């Protein structure tokens, strides 16, 4: 990668100095129809997952051996799986698991990555060098492989999936926050805070951290989709959430054996993953454009 050296004297001109009121950003976001569509999909998914116990007539784990591998009917709109479980119920309940994994994993990633990135960018020097070399090594495990390697060490199960996916997303945040911190720490107000003797940790919290809010929000909305995808991939390989817990990826992994006879058991859980990721992508792109209209993809 081409490493850019921060041009210290010119940095002030490059940093965005405008202040965007949060309400102005939300107003701009709400005019973006595509982003609103993503948001609506997510609200519907979250609500139906939360209210699954009320709106779903079947228990997602209740086997019915009189209705094994049923094609979609009025009683079972998505059909039933190899144990006669109602697929619609499983997909809706599965939303609880997948959305939970996505949000908590990204919380872990940001919770670790943001402070590390702040320290790395603010202090520079040896600390920065060490942290960046560690990130280089983590990033040398291409994409999905890092989460997969971690799960092979931790073992399968819901908690380990969340931890693996979370840790594998840490470098993204470290790099992002470090970049913003590097350009912020040279600004006049940080310099004056230092001059009046404010301790470093306060400068970081009061003066640097607020500048990272926009990139964190934009990145996180895209990152939740990616976390759901990674977790589903682990589940698909049989290395994710243990059955019979309804999780979209795990359901797809089990469906592979019934592909020849029953197309629907592989179709609907995957459609749910697809919709969730697309919704996060649409919303994330919209939030990015709302924060900085100039960055809008032409």
């Amino acid at each position, binding site marked *: *990668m081409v490493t850019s050296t921060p041009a210290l004297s010119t940095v002030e001109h490059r940093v965005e100095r405008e202040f965007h009121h949060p309400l102005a950003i939300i107003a701009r976001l709400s005019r973006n129809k595509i982003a609103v569509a993503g948001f609506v999909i997510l609200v519907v998914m979250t609500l139906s997952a939360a209210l699954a116990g009320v709106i779903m007539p079947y228990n997602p784990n209740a086997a019915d051996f009189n209705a094994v591998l049923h094609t979609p009917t009025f009683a079972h709109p998505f059909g039933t799986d190899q144990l006669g479980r109602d697929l619609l119920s499983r997909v809706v309940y599965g939303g609880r698991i997948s959305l939970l994994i996505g949000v908590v994993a990204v919380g872990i990633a940001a919770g670790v990555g943001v402070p590390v990135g702040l320290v790395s960018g603010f202090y520079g020097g040896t600390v920065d060098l060490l942290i960046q070399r560690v990130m280089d090594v983590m990033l040398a495990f*291409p994409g999905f492989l890092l989460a997969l*390697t971690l*799960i092979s060490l931790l073992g399968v199960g819901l908690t380990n999936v969340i931890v693996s996916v979370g840790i594998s997303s840490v470098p993204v945040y470290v790099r992002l926050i470090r970049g913003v911190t590097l350009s912020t720490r040279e600004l006049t107000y940080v310099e004056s805070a230092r001059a009046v003797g404010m301790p470093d940790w306060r400068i970081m919290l009061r003066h640097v951290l607020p500048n990272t809010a926009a990139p964190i929000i934009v990145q996180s909305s895209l990152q939740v989709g990616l976390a759901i995808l990674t977790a589903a991939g682990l589940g698909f390989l049989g290395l994710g959430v243990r059955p019979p817990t309804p999780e979209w990826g795990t359901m797809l992994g089990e469906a592979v054996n019934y592909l020849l006879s029953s197309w629907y058991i592989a*179709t609907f859980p*995957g459609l749910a993953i697809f919709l969730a990721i697309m919704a996060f992508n649409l919303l994330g792109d919209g939030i990015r454009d709302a924060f900085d209209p100039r960055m809008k993809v032409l």
Partner: protein
Amino acid sequence: MTFAARRLLAAIPTLFGVTLIVFFMVRMLPGDPARLLAGLNASEDEVNHIRVQLGLTRPLPVQYEVFIANLVRGNLGTSTVTQAPVTYEVGVRLPATALLATTASVLSIALGVGSGILVSTRQYTGTDYLITVLALAGVSIPVFWLGLMLMITFAVALHVLPAGGDAGPRSLILPSIALAAFSLAIIERQTRSSMLETLRQDYVRTARAKGLAERVVIYRHALRNSLIPVVTVIGLQSATLLGGAILTERTFSWPGIGTLLVNAIQSRDYPIIQGVVLLFSLTFVIVNLIVDILYGYIDPRIKYG
């Protein structure tokens, strides 16, 4: 020192870190590393043999030295399941994975850059909207689900292509399409926005004003200056491709090292896991190195920057 040599040196700490992680992998797990590396069914003699061979009774730095020495000689241990050398197990499956990954990269780069250029010259037309929607679907669709849907459509319903396995060129079609889709979409998006930006530059207007053919303006003047961010994205996509290959191989029962890795994780075959993880990271580091060096050729300013 030349640009290429400096980049090469910069990759060394990363490679060192990767070997450290793979080295510590079995030593961090609870239990005796010798037993983990020998397999659960190994006799006491075999476990002791491995303990002596890897110097597991000696201090960690010495163990690491032994590990690296073995690595350099291509000795990665033996599979605890098949008892065959790791290099053999990986070696016989490597061509299949290389074929799949290469086909998918060529597909995603050619179609991604091609369609990106195409729509950048037709902004806000029907073609532009169609490709933009397809690209949005491409970046959101899970590779394994796309694989399953292609399989249901073309193998189960239409019977025109094989559903899985590796039996001739026809069985390569569906897996490589599934694997290429995500990267293709990302490369298309980057090419489009990068080209649109370049096409607004003054020198492009100058080129048009002096009467150059549109083809020359686009390919000679605009494309080359749009390529830097595209090449960056292509380098980053090699990670997605390698990771996606694991999932694609599983979907299509493709006999490559991705399938080997997943089976090894399920049977706790640690020597194999170490070998495959090492190979994947090494490949990725090398690809990134090549991309970095390519920058210098595309944009001579970077060499001196």
